[in-house]
């Protein structure tokens, strides 16, 4: 049994990342082909870069339109995205994009807050807002929306991934190594440096679901992470064209 688990765990770290990247790129290529094979939009005046940037900031960063429509939903969505961004930023430390020392000039407690306290709160916030969004979707189903299966799958996949990630933080670590513990996904390219070795089951399942989530992005509504920026830019440009 142990050898089977070891086999899977090794597979999640050493083999699956290649499959994840391949499926993500294939999915992105299929999605791009699907869009590019559609007829071109009728000729319009030139894209207004200023208006495009303005509405990317207003609508993608601050969710202006959601704020106008529903303040409560705006708060949930805004916090959800803040938490998502925060968690993504936090993960960057493990890949040596930033370090706790960068915050040290602001005080020891700030650095500790950034790497110890804040991530836990961000994790809870992320899970809570996802649950609220899931409940909202279930409650509105058949009354205001007709979700596609992938609307749910994307949310559930993300929820599982974040619960596993939070589990890693709140359950006692497996070990505290003297130097950082390196998890090599792709040699020389994707290496995760851990100061604490988390509970292995949570960690490896988190790695599995994170990769499933990444693979799923181009095939699902999660594609809005990229395309939503483009559609918002085009909307901004249209407003400029119409003099609005």
């Amino acid at each position, binding site marked *: 049994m142990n050898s089977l688990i070891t086999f899977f765990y090794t597979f999640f770290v050493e083999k699956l990342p290649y499959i994840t990247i391949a499926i993500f790129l294939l999915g992105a290529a299929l999605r791009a082909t699907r869009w590019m094979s559609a007829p071109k939009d009728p000729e319009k005046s030139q894209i207004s870069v200023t208006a495009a940037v303005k509405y990317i900031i207003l609508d993608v960063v601050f969710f202006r339109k959601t704020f*106008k429509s529903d303040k409560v939903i705006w708060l949930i969505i805004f916090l959800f995205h803040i938490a998502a961004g925060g968690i993504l930023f936090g993960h960057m430390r493990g890949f040596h994009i930033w370090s706790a020392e960068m915050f040290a000039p602001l005080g020891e407690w700030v650095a500790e807050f950034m790497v110890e306290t804040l991530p836990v709160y961000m994790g809870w916030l992320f899970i809570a807002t996802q649950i609220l969004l899931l409940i909202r979707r279930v409650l509105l189903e058949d009354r205001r929306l007709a979700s596609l299966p992938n609307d749910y799958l994307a949310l559930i996949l993300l929820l599982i991934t974040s619960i596993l990630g939070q589990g890693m933080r709140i359950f006692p670590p497996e070990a505290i190594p003297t130097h950082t513990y390196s998890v090599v996904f792709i040699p020389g390219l994707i290496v995760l440096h851990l100061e604490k070795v988390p509970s292995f089951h949570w960690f490896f399942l988190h790695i599995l679901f994170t990769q499933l989530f990444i693979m799923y992005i181009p095939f699902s509504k999660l594609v809005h992470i990229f*395309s939503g920026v*483009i559609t918002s830019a085009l909307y901004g440009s249209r407003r400029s064209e119409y003099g609005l």
Partner: protein
Amino acid sequence: MASKLDTEKVREALRRFTRRQMMELDTCAHCALCTENCPAYADSKIPNYAPGVRSSKTLRLINKQFGLRARLLGPNPIKADEVADLADSAFNCTLCGRCMETCPFGFQTHELWTGVRCLVYELDGTLPRVKMLDQMLRETQNPYGLQAEMRLDWADYTGLEDVHVKDRADVAYFVGCTTAFKGANHEVAYSIASILNQLGEDWTLLAEDEWCCGSPLLLAGNEEGAREFAEHNVEALEARGVKTVITGCAGCFRVFKWEYPKLLGRRPSFKVIHAVEYLRDKLVAGELKPDLLRANVAYHDPCELSRLGGVIEAPREALRRLAQGLVELPEHGIDVRCCGGGGLLQAANNDLRLSIVKRRLDQAVEVGAEILTSACPACKLAFVDGIRASRCEIEVLDVMELAARQLGLL
């Protein structure tokens, strides 16, 4: 068992969605944030009328033919029932574009839903009354099935003496079918013509040579028909050497200004302005000197003029010079709540149209408006019908009628 549609025909029709529209359909997270602000949903609570549901259903059809599963295992047939269901969703919509203003991703929904209507049209799923309208338009070049000779009847009914129908002129007044053929709007045409006469403009009507602008054809999903009408009108106007086309109809304005270049693949040689823009310019320049009305006047932005046409300030600037008490309705400007008069909703579901207009009239009463103005004959008709149905005590006028009245012309 529901009949299955010819796969090739379906695939061809589904290929009509442009790159941006495909991206929008794939990006739609079905968050339903557009729903509460959608007048058709808000006043019916029927899920099928919600924009997000329409997006889901359209995407389902596309994916049945072009999705990953269809690529691997072959396309899934589409049933006539599915098209009928989509038609029910697509036509129970005022095409007001409010969902564009609430969509977190800024989908250009007016064009997207028009595309869905075109899809339904190409798959012969259009609602029977819309089909009749399309038929009438093709036969008589107007949506009311009336003879072209009747296009100038409004001038007789209103007693306009100086009617201009010339071979060449700088300015053309494009009356539009709902103004020319609907009695409630005849005085709008009279007002615009009288103001042009008072200012001594070199203007003309197209008279019998005027065809519908093509807006109802586009709204019915008949893009080819709209293109034919656009070609005719542009040819007729360019042949007269017209430099500026003035229209008092928000629908005609939007189609002339924003759709004709797309339909024809070129910009017409003339400029297109709405009558309220012309009025504003003349009032600001001091060429018109109206008496100031002492009454609370509210302005309802026609969706096709404001959010979909880009004209929001001009009518307000004009009204400030016509009336002392301009009051704003709660949802206005780019966020205007539709009156229910657009998108051929009258043909598809008049009860829904009346319930939408009632909500807007209630808003006007709540802000204490004595006169409710607009700048669109379809809005005016909707308000007139709404007042009749709800026995509301508010006067409805087009901005141009109010101007003519304050100038002593009406």
